[in-house]
């Protein structure tokens, strides 16, 4: 197990470098951060040259990247163009988004697995069809549409909740945004659980479990669920990273000042250090989530553990 973890960590390094380099190159080579700072004004060439030098922009791209990465490992993500430290922005944004993500993941686990299990066990019955159609609809409606619809009806029309989240949000304020954020994944988790349950219900070992005279609750809880949840756990694990990065739209709609909000602001205001910094951290989160999923997979499925 220990060697497996080390091997996986080593494999992560080139992927991390490759991914961040692409992002870095996109922002710094394709876009011109200095020119973008001035927008339509024509800057003084001397100022531009000095700024380019300060930001290492006059060096080759690879050198810029190496210097940037070096800084990151000392905890220096640079400054946004308004002088605010990027790490400071992160310190505010990440806890908020993490909170939102955790609520969303909990919804996925409880509702997604629960509904998937029920519809899988009652395959072809009314509940199953309702769940199948319902998830199809949720998958089809883009998240910003769901967000506005939820906001319009629940907050504006019926006044059940506040339309946007306060500056220091509590958990119950997060529930509606978390639902919107989790919507798509929730539908996927439900469908995945259902498919997995249906597939495993036909497995030989499940027939054995019945033939052993086990009570139905035990057949389902111990034998069916345990096996069926392996792919679901994998999906949910990878989703932690995806949700944090995917919160751009939801955070915008509900005015939550999290990672997605800052990232979008960075993009709109052409704030290159913010964008690259946030994306780098998100990539890291994403890769770590994948690693944890792989390890979890090995714990859940002994056939992999010893392979």
């Amino acid at each position, binding site marked *: 197990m220990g060697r497996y973890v080390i091997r996986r960590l080593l494999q992560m390094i080139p*992927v991390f470098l490759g*991914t961040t380099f692409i992002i870095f190159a996109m922002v710094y080579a*394709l876009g011109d951060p200095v020119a973008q700072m001035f927008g339509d004004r024509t800057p003084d060439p001397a100022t531009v040259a000095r700024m380019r030098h300060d930001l290492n922009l006059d060096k080759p791209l690879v050198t810029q990247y190496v210097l940037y990465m070096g800084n990151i490992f000392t905890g220096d993500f640079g400054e946004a163009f308004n002088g605010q430290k990027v790490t400071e922005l992160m310190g505010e944004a990440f806890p908020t988004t993490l909170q939102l993500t955790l609520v969303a993941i909990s919804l996925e686990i409880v509702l997604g697995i629960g509904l998937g299990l029920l519809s899988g066990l009652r395959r072809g019955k009314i509940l199953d069809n309702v769940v199948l159609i319902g998830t199809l609809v949720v998958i089809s409606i*883009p998240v*910003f549409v769901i967000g506005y*619809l939820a906001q319009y009806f629940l907050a504006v029309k019926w006044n059940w909740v506040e339309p946007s989240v306060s500056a220091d949000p509590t958990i119950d304020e997060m529930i509606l945004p978390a639902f919107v954020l989790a919507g798509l994944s929730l539908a996927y988790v439900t469908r995945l659980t259902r498919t997995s349950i249906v597939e495993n219900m036909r497995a030989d070992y499940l027939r054995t479990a019945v033939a052993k005279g086990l009570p139905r609750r035990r057949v389902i809880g111990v034998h069916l669920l345990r096996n069926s949840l392996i792919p679901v756990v994998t999906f949910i694990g990878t989703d932690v990273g995806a949700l944090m990065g*995917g919160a751009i739209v939801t955070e915008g709609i509900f005015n939550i000042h999290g990672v997605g909000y800052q990232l979008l602001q960075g993009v709109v205001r052409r704030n290159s250090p913010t964008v690259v910094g946030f994306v780098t951290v998100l990539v890291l989160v*994403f890769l770590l989530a994948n690693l944890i999923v792989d390890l979890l997979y090995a714990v859940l499925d002994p056939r992999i553990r010893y392979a």
Partner: protein
Amino acid sequence: MPDLIEKTPSGAAAAAAPAAEKREKPRSLWGDAWGTLRRNPVFIISALLILLLVTVSAWPGLFTSTDPRACNLDQSKVGSTSGHPFGFDIQGCDVYARTIYGARASVTVGICVTVGVALLGGVLGGLAGYFGGWWDALLSRITDIFFGIPLLLGGLVFLSVIKGGSVWTVIAFMIALSWPQIARIARSSVITVKQQDYVQAAKALGASTTRIMLRHVLPNAIAPVIVVSTIALGTYISIEATLSYLGVGLKPPTISWGQDISSAAQQYRNAPHMLLWPAGALSLTVLSFIMLGDAVRDALDPKLR
């Protein structure tokens, strides 16, 4: 006991045999899939919707005579009136006309990205799976790297930098970031098929590489690629709309639902009709393609039914 065998079935039995054969004629995967599809109401509904959508995108003029770009600020946010059933948006443009004309961008992006991704990913992944070696190793690393960049995040960063905004820029970008997903699937599918006995048999019989690839591997490995591609089509449309909504995807003069929803969203609380129509059209479009993908998956992958 050879005499026993001699005397076997006469008359009735012999007549029964061809009948039984006809019944049990081995159905091919594709024939069987088509048979399943034709009887699937989900497929019929989605196919009809898609047919309608494609017609609307190809000849929008058939459905409205109003110019979507002829706007009159006097009519800003006016609701449903005669001749303009969906009302007007902030700019005073006819919402119905814009909804009709917006279909083209979504459908074009969806179909082009799907075809591009399936071809690029399918070929690159398939070759990697078939030949293995350094190309396979390189491709695996590349797909790993692209896997680390979520489409939405990458789109936000990349498209905001290049300041494109045309349909083709968006398509090219989405293909560039999405092909590794299909490449992975094609690769593993080809590897599975390659190890099947009938491929080994063809090899043993001296069939050429091209023949093995085209006659044996391709038809058997392509099903997962088709299934995932069809399901992804709806997702691509949804992502394009999200990028346009965020202001980095399609830009004027292209008319797109994502942009219309974005501008409507600013003031939707006092004029929800501006938001609902393009949003409804977008959702219905994505729904039809996802339903189609679902039906295709059921037909090609009966195991999951």
